[in-house]
C-alpha cells in the first residue's frame, strides 16, 4: 500500500519568521485529524514552531484556501496555512 499524501503546510507573516520556513510537507500520525491536533503536533517539532504557536488565540488558519477553525478536519494532501489575523486594506 502506498504511503498517504503529505500535508502541505504554509506559514505567513510572523509565523513564517518564527518557524524559519515559508512551507513544509509533513506526514503527521493518523490521529492528527483536525486543525487543533495539527497545531499541537507541529508545535512539538522544534523551538521555532513552539514559538510560532505559543499564542494560539492569535493564530488563524485556512484549509485548502478557505478560512478554518480549530475543529476543521484535515486530510492527507490538504493545504493548511497558518497566519496572524489579517491586516490588509
Amino acid at each position, binding site marked *: 500500500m502506498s504511503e498517504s499524501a503529505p500535508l502541505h503546510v504554509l506559514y505567513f*507573516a*510572523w509565523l513564517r519568521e518564527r518557524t524559519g520556513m515559508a512551507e513544509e510537507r509533513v506526514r503527521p500520525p493518523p490521529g492528527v485529524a483536525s486543525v487543533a491536533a495539527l497545531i499541537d503536533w507541529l508545535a512539538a517539532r522544534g523551538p521555532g514552531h513552539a514559538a510560532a504557536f505559543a499564542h494560539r488565540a492569535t493564530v488563524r488558519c485556512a484549509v485548502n*484556501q478557505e478560512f478554518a477553525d480549530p475543529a476543521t478536519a484535515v486530510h492527507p494532501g490538504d493545504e493548511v496555512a497558518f*497566519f*496572524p*489575523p489579517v*491586516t*490588509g*486594506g
Partner: protein
Amino acid sequence: MARIRVQTEDFDAGAELAALAAGRTDVGGIGCFVGTVRGDVGGRALAALVLEHYPAMTERALGQIVAEAGRRWALLGCTVIHRVGRLEPGANIVLVAAASAHRADALEATAFLIDWLKTKAPFWKREEFADGAAAWVAARETDAAAADRWTEAAAGGRPG
C-alpha cells in the same frame, strides 16, 4: 461584472472609475475608496509598509467578498485592486469601487467591500520605521467591529 487584481504596480483611480461607466448609460453613481500609506504611526516616522499575501487564496477570498456585495446590493460593476510588496508613504495600497444605478447602493457596497476586505482577505502589513525598526501590524478591534456591523445588517436591517 467584477475586476479583481492583486499587483505590485500602482493603479490609476481615475481610469478605474472611468472604466466602470465606460460604454454604458445605466450607471447612476460610483462609490470609491482608496487606501494610501500614512507617513507616521503614532508620531513615529514610517519608511515603508510591506504587504504580504497568500497568493493561492487571495483572489478567491476577494471574489467571495465581491460576490457577497453583489447579493446585497444592486451593483452594475465592481473593482477591487490591492497592491503587495514594499510601499512608501503616500503610495496607493487599495482601491474598491462599486457602480450602481443609485448612490445608496454604490456607497454602502463600497463601505462593505473595504470593511470585509480588511478582515476577510489574506493580506498582512509589516511596518518599516525610519529608525530601522520593523513590526507586523496587529489586527484592530475597530476593524473587526466595522466588519461585524455588516453581519448584523444581514440578520436584519442596515447598519446604523
